């Protein structure tokens, strides 16, 4: 095994182009587990923790450009107001030790259907900025996930950043596990209300081969909210229940050691209904961030 530690983004991209089977490592919360248990023996480890550009976030053209190597602890402490949905997801991740190391870039690179950041990224219409020596491209996060632990990333590409437009409306995140810390989600749900464009964003985690949205639920809710955005009137309970059912219908879970498919479907309908109830209550209060 070789170990490369590029000091610049250009060096990192050149190294990935020259060694396409290199495994990038940032927080190590996935990669080191694979190595420790003998499941992963890459020919080359590409340590990205010395690339300064990856450790930064900045406002860029109306969006927050979040460097792929910013750990979750900083997403929580520095971006709780701008990216409330992602920060809520980040608070559910692992433990303080894990949040000090783990990154959104790593969550995307692993592309596990259970990755905690994905539902928040989906609900917020995030874009993934990937790069190689051939150039840079932006991939809508909905098109990024291609299968269980497979993504749209080419073998010479690295994840540079995610881009998220700070929301004009409330966001919520909900996750089911056996306890509040150190759990892989049994199921997770992210919600974003977009009053500025009268739209709804959703994200489902741990309940399909990939993280995915619930388009029918989004369309239904946007229709129901059509007359309510301006009045900020109470949301009928039946609407929240129906929304939950439609979210659950969009899932395609399996039975596994963490839970049954039937439980996941039920949990999703409950989480979606509650997330909507919380988000709408925030919207009625006029609180745009509810962070």
């Amino acid at each position: 095994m070789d170990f490369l530690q590029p000091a610049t983004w250009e060096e990192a991209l050149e190294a990935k182009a020259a060694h396409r089977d290199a495994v990038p490592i940032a927080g190590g919360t996935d990669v080191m587990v694979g190595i420790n248990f003998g499941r992963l023996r890459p020919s080359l480890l590409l340590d990205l923790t010395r690339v300064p550009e990856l450790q930064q976030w900045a406002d860029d053209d109306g969006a927050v450009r979040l460097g792929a190597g910013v750990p979750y602890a900083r997403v929580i402490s520095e971006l709780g107001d701008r990216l409330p949905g992602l920060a809520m997801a980040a608070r559910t991740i692992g433990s303080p030790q894990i949040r000090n190391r783990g990154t959104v870039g790593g969550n995307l690179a692993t592309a596990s259907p259970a990755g905690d950041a994905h539902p928040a990224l989906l609900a917020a219409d995030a874009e993934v900025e990937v790069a190689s020596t051939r150039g840079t491209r932006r991939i809508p996060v909905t098109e990024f996930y291609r299968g269980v632990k497979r993504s749209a990333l080419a073998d010479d590409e690295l994840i540079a950043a995610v881009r998220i437009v700070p929301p004009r409306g409330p966001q919520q995140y909900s996750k089911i596990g056996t306890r509040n810390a150190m759990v892989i989600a049994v199921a997770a749900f992210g919600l974003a209300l977009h009053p500025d464009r009268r739209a709804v964003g959703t994200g489902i985690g741990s309940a399909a081969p990939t993280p995915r949205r619930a388009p029918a639920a989004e369309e239904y809710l946007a229709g129901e909210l059509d007359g309510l955005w301006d009045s900020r009137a109470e949301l009928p309970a039946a609407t929240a229940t129906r929304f939950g059912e439609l979210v659950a219908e969009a899932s395609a879970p399996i039975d596994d050691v963490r839970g049954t498919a039937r439980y996941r479907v039920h949990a999703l309908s409950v989480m979606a209904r509650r997330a909507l109830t919380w988000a709408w209550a925030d919207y009625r209060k006029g609180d745009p961030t509810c962070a």
Partner: protein
Amino acid sequence: MRLSCTVNGTPQQVDDVWEGESLLYVLRERMGLPGSKNACEQGECGSCTVYLDGLPVCACLVAAGQAQGREVGTVEGLTPAGAAPGELHPVQQAFLEAGAVQCGFCTPGLLVATDDLVHRSLAEGRKPADAEIREALAGNLCRCTGYEKILDAVRLAADRMAADPTAEAAR
């Protein structure tokens, strides 16, 4: 490969480190610092918690090379250099007195996590609330104590360290 880093304030250099090795392995097997414990090797248990550039992390999830040039603080470094033999750090003393140690395997990780929590809280001019203690220690598993005595120990350590602001963080 060769690895150079600072551990508990002392520059260290080791050779023939395997590229896939964890910082935990380097500390325990190459530097003679077995305080950080090796249990789950997947970041679940917190027994290997060390400071890396001042932040508590699971040493089992840090690739050795990622520690190159960095500052590492382990449980062995909690007691300041020059302390009398047997002299304990306030967090260690509190764990002992509160009965927070049974088999002791999780203790080193809990000591580092507690040291970090108490210093962060005191830096903000307050003691950690119970909810913060639970959150800060959520990544440190203990299978003996049932945690109640550990919570007592953290409160005791925070009380004493608040009264003696000269106590330095090992980070």
